Each structure stands twice: as structure tokens, then as C-alpha cells.
């Protein structure tokens, strides 16, 4: 176990963490803002990659490939939203149904389980081959960081609009929202489309980075996304009250997830156990707030500080 091996893997971990951080922002929109655990994303992640790679292979330019991926993701989110709002299927189940059907769709898009692209031949934005020895503006860390910033800025603006407020209200209290004239069904569909569009963007970047699209790619994506959301919140929530900064925390959560991931592999953990470990970590962090409420008495001081914070925010 040579520490320099680990250090050499850090840039890769950061790049992957940033890409998954974008995915986690999508999860944040459904899980935290809309209060829906949307499992569509496992399928959408792979769909984003598949659409992007196939468009590139068929001669479309890189921006077209990325936009195509985002549109495909939004369509997937729309299907889940309509299953939920038009047919009354509980959102978790609606997401599972879309996710399962996307597996077939992704196979059809790719024509097989996997498609590789030669990242030197195509004009890709991010590639793991470019972590070293290229000007900084071609470095995948720099490029994905730009994407992260753009996504966060757009969402920060959007959630400050009347429409964005309606979306937040829908997740908070749907009854009250309808009483205030908000079409909660439209908002849920919109939120799911927005979220899955962002997830597909992440999938498209990941496929370029890996140089391949794979139907298996999104398996367990929701758990990684949740892990990033929760790690970011646990570590940074005390500091960050502003919405944009919270989204930054989510991305930091993604980066930390991948640094830990690489470290655990470096420590020699059986790679077969990684998904089990991820799920366990998420389960523990999801459980902490509940256990805290049940067993820890809040100190009066911290409550007063909290109140003061939110008054000053």
C-alpha cells in the first residue's frame, strides 16, 4: 500500500465526485425539495450516457449530444411524474416502473449492453485521459466544475422565481399549495423533469469521462446521490443556510464520497462489498436524525442559536 498510489488517484476521485455531484443535485431536487424519493434516476443516469454516446457515434456534435441526453432524461422524469399524478401510482413505485422500463430502452438505444467511444477520436468535453498533461481548461476537473457552477446558478435563480417558490411549496405542503392556487400535479411533473434532466446531464458527462456508456452504469445511482446529499448536509449544514451553498455542499458530498471510495479500495476492501458499504452508510446517516430526535435531548442553547440564525438569514 503505497500512499502515492492513492494520491495519484485523487484527481480522478475529484472528477468523478464532481460528475456525481451534479447527479446528486438532481436527487436533492426530488428528495429534499419535492419530498419524493425518485428511483427513476438509476435508469436516467444510464440513459443520459447512452443517448450522449450514440449521438456522438452518429456524428452529432458534442453540445447536441449533451442536450439530447438532457431531453431524454426530462422525458423519463415526465413519465414518472405522469404515472404518479395521472394514474395515482405512489411516486416510489412510479420511479421503479420507469427505471425498469428504461433498462430496455437503454439497451435499444445502445444496441447492446455497452458502447465504447474512442475519446481521442471524438470531441468530448471531459475524459479521464486528460487528468494530466493538458492545459487546465481541458482538465475534466475544471470542465465539470464549470458545469456544476452553471447548474447551481440556474437552479438558484429558478428557485427564487414565483414558479420555483411554487415548486418548494408543493414539496412542503401540497394541501396548502393547492389552497394557494398552485397546480401541485404540474409542479411535481416539472420537478421530476428538472431533476432527471440534471441526472441525465451527469450521465452524459460520466459516459464521456469513462469513454463508454453501459446499461449497468446507473445501478444504485440513487444511493450514491443520497449519500452525497446526506454527507454534504451532515458536514456542512450548520454553515450553509443559503440555497446555492447547500447545493455546493451536495457536490462536496459527492467528492468526499469518491475520495472515501478510492481510499477504501486502496485499503484493500473487497470491491464486491462496495455497494453494501454505500447502502449501509446511507442507512446510518438517514437514521441519525431520527435517532437524535428520539434519544438526544436538545440543549436549549443550540435551539436559541438556531432561532437567531434563521432570523438573521
Amino acid at each position, binding site marked *: 500500500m503505497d500512499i502515492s498510489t492513492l494520491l495519484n488517484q485523487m484527481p480522478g476521485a475529484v472528477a468523478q465526485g464532481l460528475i456525481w455531484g451534479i447527479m446528486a443535485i438532481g436527487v436533492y431536487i426530488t428528495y429534499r425539495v419535492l419530498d419524493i424519493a425518485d428511483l427513476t434516476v438509476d435508469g436516467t443516469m444510464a440513459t443520459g450516457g447512452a443517448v450522449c454516446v450514440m449521438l456522438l457515434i452518429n456524428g452529432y456534435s458534442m453540445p447536441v449530444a449533451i442536450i439530447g441526453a438532457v431531453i431524454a432524461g426530462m422525458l423519463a422524469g415526465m413519465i414518472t411524474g405522469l404515472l404518479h399524478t395521472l394514474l395515482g401510482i405512489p411516486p416510489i413505485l412510479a420511479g421503479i416502473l420507469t427505471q425498469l422500463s428504461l433498462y430496455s430502452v437503454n439497451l435499444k438505444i445502445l444496441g447492446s449492453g455497452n458502447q465504447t467511444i474512442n475519446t481521442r477520436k471524438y470531441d468530448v468535453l471531459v475524459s479521464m485521459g486528460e487528468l494530466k498533461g493538458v492545459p487546465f481548461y481541458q482538465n475534466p476537473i475544471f470542465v465539470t466544475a464549470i458545469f456544476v457552477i452553471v447548474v447551481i446558478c440556474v437552479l438558484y435563480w429558478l428557485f427564487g422565481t414565483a414558479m420555483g417558490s411554487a415548486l418548494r411549496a408543493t*414539496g*412542503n405542503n401540497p394541501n396548502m399549495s393547492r*389552497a394557494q*392556487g398552485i*397546480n401541485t400535479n404540474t409542479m411535481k411533473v416539472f420537478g421530476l423533469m428538472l431533476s432527471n434532466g440534471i441526472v441525465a446531464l451527469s450521465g452524459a458527462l460520466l459516459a464521456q469521462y469513462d469513454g463508454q456508456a453501459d446499461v449497468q452504469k446507473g445501478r444504485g445511482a440513487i444511493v450514491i446521490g443520497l449519500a452525497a446529499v446526506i454527507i454534504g448536509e451532515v458536514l456542512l449544514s450548520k454553515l450553509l443556510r443559503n440555497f446555492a451553498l447547500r447545493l455546493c455542499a451536495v457536490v462536496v458530498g459527492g467528492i468526499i464520497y469518491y475520495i472515501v471510495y478510492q481510499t477504501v479500495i486502496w485499503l484493500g476492501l473487497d470491491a464486491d462489498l462496495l455497494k453494501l458499504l454505500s447502502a449501509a452508510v446511507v442507512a446510518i446517516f438517514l437514521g441519525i436524525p431520527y435517532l437524535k430526535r428520539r434519544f438526544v435531548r436538545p440543549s436549549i442553547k443550540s435551539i436559541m442559536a438556531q432561532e437567531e440564525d*434563521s432570523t438573521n438569514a
Partner: protein
Amino acid sequence: MLELSNIYKVFNPNTVNEKIALKNLSLTLNDGDFVTVIGGNGAGKSTMLNAIAGVWRVDAGSITIDGVDVTAMPEHRRAKFLGRVFQDPMMGTAAGMNIEENLALAARRGKSRGLGWGIRKAERAEYREKLAMLELGLENRMTTKVGLLSGGQRQALTLLMATLQRPKLLLWTSTPPPLTPRPPRKCFLSPIGSSTRTS
């Protein structure tokens, strides 16, 4: 003006739990009317208000508000006519959003919610003034999350939200006395067409 004509509502039809909650109910309220509906538990008071609010469609009969037949209109579209104060003080506000954001939501009731700002500077001053009328000190806590307020404070806020835009009809389900907000001394309910209150 509100007109309920011969409305019916049956819960769990054709099952052993079938319950005819509203049976051939008709009611006419004119502008300026103030009506208090009193009845025992399960009499159907909440069901009547839910029928007016459009939480679900009535099984028969028709509902007209201000000359508009709203019988088939979904809840969110009827909202432009109605101010609503729910029985449960937690129901009328968004706990995870702050006081001014809640008021801004209410100020846009019945209007299109596009990509304009969710709250504007000028609105804040107006909200501060109106909150001050409640005399609960909420005007100094406009960025406090509503979830941190007491039931009574939240109910008072709900009432303010319901009347921020003059509703054609105020539907108010009263809560047990300890949770009922202290009536504001300066009355901001006056300009309302008609209101219905149940207890």
C-alpha cells in the same frame, strides 16, 4: 355570492363503509354574509367546506361562486375565489419556508406563477406592516421558518395569508379555543365579500 344547489357527497360508495356525508344540501350566501355553521362531530361541516374548496368533486349538484360554475373546477383553480383557514394550524402554511415566502405565495393566489421573482422588495414592506397588525411580533421574524412558530402563530399567519388578496369567500374551520388566534384589533377582514365559518 355562493350557491350550493342540491349537492351530494358519498364516501366509500358501494362498500360497507358507505357514508352519505352530504345529502341534497342547498345553501345561498350573499355578498357580505357571515355564516357560522355549528354541528356535532361528523355532522358534515368539514365535508361541506371541502366541497366548496374543491378538494374533490361532489357526486351530484352544482356549486357557483360569484356567478361562476365551479362544480368541475379543480381545487387549485378555485383558489382564486377562496381564502382558507384550516382546522389544523399546521395545514395552512409551508413549514420549511419562511414567513415572507409564505405570504408571497398567498399574494400570488390565482395568478400565474412564472419566472418573475418569487418575492419583491416592495412586498416585504407591505408584509411587515400587515404582520404588525397581528401584534405577535412576527414582523421582526420575517425570515424565520414557519415550522418554528407555535400553532397559534401559524394560524394567525394563515388567516393573514387567506386575506392578503381579498377573497370572494373566506372558509374558516375553527380550532379549539386555545389554538384560535387572538382576534386582531385592527380588523383586516372587513373588505371580504362573504365568509363562512364552521366550528
